[in-house]
């Protein structure tokens, strides 16, 4: 008789199957990235692209590849990973399938901050004394700064609420909804008093777009995303333990309250930075983990990596669709994710086979 019993063999087969799923979707990233690199407003043949990538440092192709296409791809990568992972871990620690960056009001907080920043930069010319402390900043930096501060503020409020009511996990989502509508009201208020240029800028800011980030911003986002992803992945088994209940998790050695607090802080911080640099990319943080869960189950060892991969794929597809749909007009990716979001989400909720 062999020393390996049947359950163990079943488990090994199951793990192999899970790894195949991960590998398949990871491989899908390559063609997706390739198509994304080769498509854009300026037509580049593969030959020109190749030259731009490695040679001809002062050609137009070089500029397009390194200053437009690459940042966009890296943006899709970082934005997809940070939003999808944030959604997945928020759903895990809050035990609520509705938890996501947008449902907690972080994105709306950022939008309000940006609107405020845009309004202030308009007022700066009229009241130079009032804004003297901010005179060192360019307008765009000030807008980002305000967006970041307000998304962080939302984060703080939510975390304070979690600390205040340690057991009230359901009320966190409701608090998120309340904060969202507060910030949306604030944004509307600012829009009402804004002039036409400002109004256009405020509205344009909320369209999440992958083209927006510059290299230094991407570096910053990259560092934060890597740190947060590392923390989330290191705690994958602790998230599994929480699936068995808070008390059981604690009896297994998990400091549930601390894990919930740090996870929420990390997830909301990465989201805040992502939204600040790209605008609102709705639904990615909600849909990617749900799709991954349908495909691969709730085990966070597989759920987290697959969510991240799907998040990137969704953003790349949204970006490409936005370019193709109304060609030559390029729709921002955020519009597409929001459009795709609703039907996909309803399908996930109501289209499940009865098992």
């Amino acid at each position, binding site marked *: 008789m062999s*020393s*390996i*019993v*049947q*359950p*163990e063999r*079943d*488990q*090994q087969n*199951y793990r192999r199957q899970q790894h195949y799923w991960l590998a398949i979707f990871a491989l899908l990233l390559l063609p997706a990235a390739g198509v994304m690199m080769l498509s854009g407003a300026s037509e580049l043949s593969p030959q020109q692209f190749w030259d731009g990538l490695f040679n001809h440092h002062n050609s137009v192709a070089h500029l397009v590849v390194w200053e437009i296409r690459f940042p966009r791809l890296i943006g899709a990568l970082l934005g997809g990973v940070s939003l999808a992972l944030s959604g997945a871990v928020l759903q895990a620690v809050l035990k609520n399938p509705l938890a996501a960056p947008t449902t907690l009001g972080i994105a709306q907080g950022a939008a309000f901050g940006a609107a405020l920043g845009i309004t202030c930069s308009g007022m700066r010319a009229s009241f130079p004394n009032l804004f003297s402390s901010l005179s060192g900043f360019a307008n765009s930096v000030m807008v980002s700064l305000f967006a970041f501060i307000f998304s962080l503020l939302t984060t703080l409020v939510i975390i304070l609420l979690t600390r205040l009511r340690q057991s009230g996990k359901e009320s966190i989502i409701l608090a998120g909804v309340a904060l969202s509508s507060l910030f949306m009201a604030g944004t509307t208020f600012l829009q009402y008093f804004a002039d036409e240029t400002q109004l256009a800028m405020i509205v344009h800011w909320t369209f999440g777009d992958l083209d927006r980030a510059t290299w230094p911003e991407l570096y910053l986002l990259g560092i934060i995303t890597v740190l947060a992803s590392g923390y989330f992945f290191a705690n994958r*088994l602790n998230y*599994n*333990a929480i*699936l*068995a*209940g808070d*008390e*059981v998790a*604690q*009896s*297994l*050695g*998990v*400091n549930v309250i601390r894990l919930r607090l740090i996870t929420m802080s990390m997830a909301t911080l990465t989201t805040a930075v992502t939204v600040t640099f790209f605008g609102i990319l709705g639904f990615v943080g909600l849909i990617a983990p749900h799709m991954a869960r349908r495909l691969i*189950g*709730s*085990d966070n*060892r597989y759920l987290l990596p697959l969510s991240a991969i799907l998040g990137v794929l969704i953003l790349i597809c949204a970006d490409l669709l936005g370019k193709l749909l109304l060609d030559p007009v390029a729709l921002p990716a955020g519009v597409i994710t929001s459009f795709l979001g609703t039907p996909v989400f309803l399908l996930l909720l109501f289209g499940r086979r009865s098992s």
Partner: protein
Amino acid sequence: MGVEFKQLSFAYGGQQVLDNISCRLTAGHIYAVLGINGTGKSTLIKLLAGFLKPAAGSVLLGNRQLKNLSLKQRAQRIAYVPQHQQISNLSVFDYLLLGRKPHHTWQSKRRDDALVGSMLEKLSLSHLTMRPLQQLSGGELQKVALARAFLQEPEILLLDEPTSSLDLKNQLEVMELISAETLAKNLTTIITVHDVNLALRFAEYFILMKDRKILAAGDLEIMTSEHLSQLYELPLQLYRQGKLLQVAPS
């Protein structure tokens, strides 16, 4: 490893739940905690598990204070199974692997897989290996939860109403599993139960709790008609049936 609690008190808000109770439990036996609803049975279990901090008094595991142990050290010594299991679509095998968590740092090893595999065989649960938890029956779920606790290789097993939602056959099967593991691994097993007859059949020691205090604690000798009638505020009569003691309203 034995367990001892000394002058233990606890209150939820202003509501006193346990008032200065003490008891000493030795390894290798099942202790049944009996009492009507709201007498602090579950609270006692949670204090022993370390989920709640006592207002006064202390809990000793062997010769070490519970409050001085880290969460991981506790997890290596104490396993806990709540009354109701939280279900998910985690597979039975992956759920059981959670029981090995206190014994590894980064991820589970081949040995953990092997232990889970043989536990499933031992408890005749192999056919459930890949089944998601949400598809299990009540009895299966309770056995799987026990298997998870056994895999933790604890010295102390805390079970809150392990049989409350099970049919008669599953009640006996679950209690037999607990009994066998307690004997085989020399565990200190503490269970809260409502079914006095089940307790009389499987437990060796009894802790009777009434009005925030311990009414009586000890072996079968304390299980008298008087004590039980006082405990449940109901005239009860003990009968001997073969080797077993049984209780019924008189």
